[in-house]
């Protein structure tokens, strides 16, 4: 991953699979992540997309932004639809009805479509072992329907269904650890990524495409609209999420954890929180509470990484 902090447009594959002219908001890092995933996978890809921002911004009849075959069925079933596509392509190739070649099957959904309503279908697909990649674009709320909380919304964030009020500080639960849930399915590849680290992201997507069996990638996708953040700060916010240890970048290959980006000295979480309107109401003691939680979680992860190193 030698190039992750080099800005080098020349190193990016030229292919674009989501066309310009889509309707995402200015500064949307979710659609940037979609673009990078497309570049990494190339044209021999079929996408099953869940309902959500990325579906709505890309497919108003009679137009489409998609340059690869793309199917949207509903909100909670991207994993099931993708597993059907994978099984369908497999059987047709086996029976000689379509040419044999490698086609990447990608399921994509938001954090709501993954960690809440789509969790069952995802678990089923991972357990059945389909050769597919599942990407969760995590913008930490139901953005498409107007910034409602999900189980992936972080503690303290104000959303329209977890507003910061006189007695409640916004979201009162800690963010669900989706990558760990994916790991628990004993699949060959799990990773976290963020479009603020584009080369790291693309390398991971390529790896996911190469493994036999299901791969899960959880992409933190900064949403300026929902996070109450200036659009030009989207990339910065993604880097701060990593540098504070709030969203560590790591891989779990066949159960072995490794850090993708080492942060020798983590920045205080406040650096990340203070630039976002959704955390505006947080008091110093709540920020301290978040800091302690992040420290604990980060150290847990480091322990897993160390354990993996010792075991190999």
């Amino acid at each position: 991953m030698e190039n992750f902090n080099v800005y080098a447009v020349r190193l990016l594959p030229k292919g674009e699979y989501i066309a310009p002219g889509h309707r995402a908001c200015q500064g949307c890092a979710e659609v940037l992540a979609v673009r990078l995933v497309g570049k990494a996978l190339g044209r021999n890809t079929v996408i099953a997309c869940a309902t959500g921002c990325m579906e709505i911004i890309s497919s108003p009849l009679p137009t489409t932004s998609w340059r690869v075959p793309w199917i949207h069925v509903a909100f909670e079933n991207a994993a099931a639809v993708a597993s059907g596509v994978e099984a369908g392509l497999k059987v047709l190739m086996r029976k000689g009805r379509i040419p044999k070649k490698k086609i990447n099957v990608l399921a994509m959904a938001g954090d709501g479509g993954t960690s809440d309503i789509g969790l069952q279908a995802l678990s089923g697909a991972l357990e059945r072992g389909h050769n597919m990649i599942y990407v969760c674009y995590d913008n930490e709320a139901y953005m498409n329907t107007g910034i409602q909380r999900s189980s992936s919304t972080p503690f303290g964030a104000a959303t329209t269904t977890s507003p910061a009020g006189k007695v409640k500080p916004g979201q009162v639960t800690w963010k669900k650890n989706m990558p760990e849930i994916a790991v628990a399915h004993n699949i060959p590849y799990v990773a976290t990524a963020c479009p603020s680290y584009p080369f790291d992201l693309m390398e991971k997507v390529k790896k996911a495409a190469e493994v036999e069996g299901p791969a899960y990638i959880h992409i933190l996708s900064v949403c300026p609209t929902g996070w109450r953040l200036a659009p030009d700060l989207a990339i910065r916010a993604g880097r701060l999420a990593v540098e504070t240890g709030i969203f560590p970048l790591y891989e779990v290959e066949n159960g072995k954890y490794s850090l993708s980006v080492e942060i020798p000295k983590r920045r205080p979480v406040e650096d990340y929180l203070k630039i976002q309107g959704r955390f505006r109401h947080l008091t110093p003691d709540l920020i301290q509470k978040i800091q302690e939680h992040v420290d604990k979680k980060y150290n847990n992860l480091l322990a897993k990484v160390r354990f993996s190193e010792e075991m190999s």
Partner: protein
Amino acid sequence: MPKRVGMEVSIAASEAVRLANVDAIAAYPITPQTHIVEHLSEFVANGELDAEFIPVESEHSAMSVCCGTSAAGARTFTCTSSQGLALMSEIVFIASAMQLPIVMILANRSLSGPLSIWNDHTDVMLVRDCGWIQCFGENGQEIFDLTLCAFKIAEDHRVILPFIVNMDGFILSHVIEPVELLDQETVDKFLPVYKPVYRLDPDNPVTMGAFAMPDLYTETKKAQDERLKASKPVIEEIWKEFGDLTGRYYSPIETYKAEGAKTLFVTMGGFSETASTAVDMMREEGEPVGLCKIRLWRPFPFEDFWKAVKGVDTLIVIDRATSYGGPGGPVASELRSALYTWEDAPKVVDFIAGLAGRDVAPGDYKKMYQRAQQRIASGDIAGYEIYGVRE
């Protein structure tokens, strides 16, 4: 000539799916559909059917996987009942809007609550307006035949719509009946390999399942409605072709002893056989009764229905589902509206009967006939009566 053999109707149904050489099956077990999935997974496990069997974690995923396999270009089958259909219903409506020619056998069962595994038609009425072609089989042979035809109709390029074959739970699914199967060669000629118009192909990328703004949604719905209606002549054509091949002809509406009848019972599915026995019995007693069986439920065969009931005084509809607080059972309500603009339309007397496995014997038809006469005499034929309630 193939010979008739005694077999469980669920096995006959599975044989039809095997002979249709399906490419993909995704289903989740639920009584009384289970025997079909079990047999199909056995076929796949023994290499007697080269298909992907996807053992999903729910019916919602079963229908979602079917959308995926069908969109990839694979001939796709699923089956379910009751709660399973209710759980997958969200996707059932989408499958037809996306023109995915999935074939489903629905082993009809009541919906909870109270929980009951037994047969009636409340499950299919839940998805009455789902945009799938829907037909009812009356016996094992019909289930076998209609299932084979369903694939050919669904995949016909003039149609390209999903298809539900309704099979009454237990009273059909679990009984042993004489069924004449077809050999593979005959089936292959009748039902060639599926050739999708569109499929998810990187060399020819398409977008499936785009969303519509108000300026286009209505147009998509009109197109969908017209497509479903336009499937009727194709259904008849393919049923005729099947008849020429096997000697077994099917029509959207079928009558029995309707000639000279003043009253016709109207039934759908497995009840039609008992109803014919009841008609035989009552005819012998000199009552001018006959039977009108609805085989094709969607698209509804209006013309055939009008022809079948012309000149009749009374229709006694046996509804197998309730529309709580509504104007009648779902079938009677539809027939009433189909007849509304018709001069000299027959009176429609509606009985809701045979809910959740409650037996309706030939004698019960006679009682309903007598009760209908009373209701007509007292001018009380609006609405419906739930028949056979124990006091």
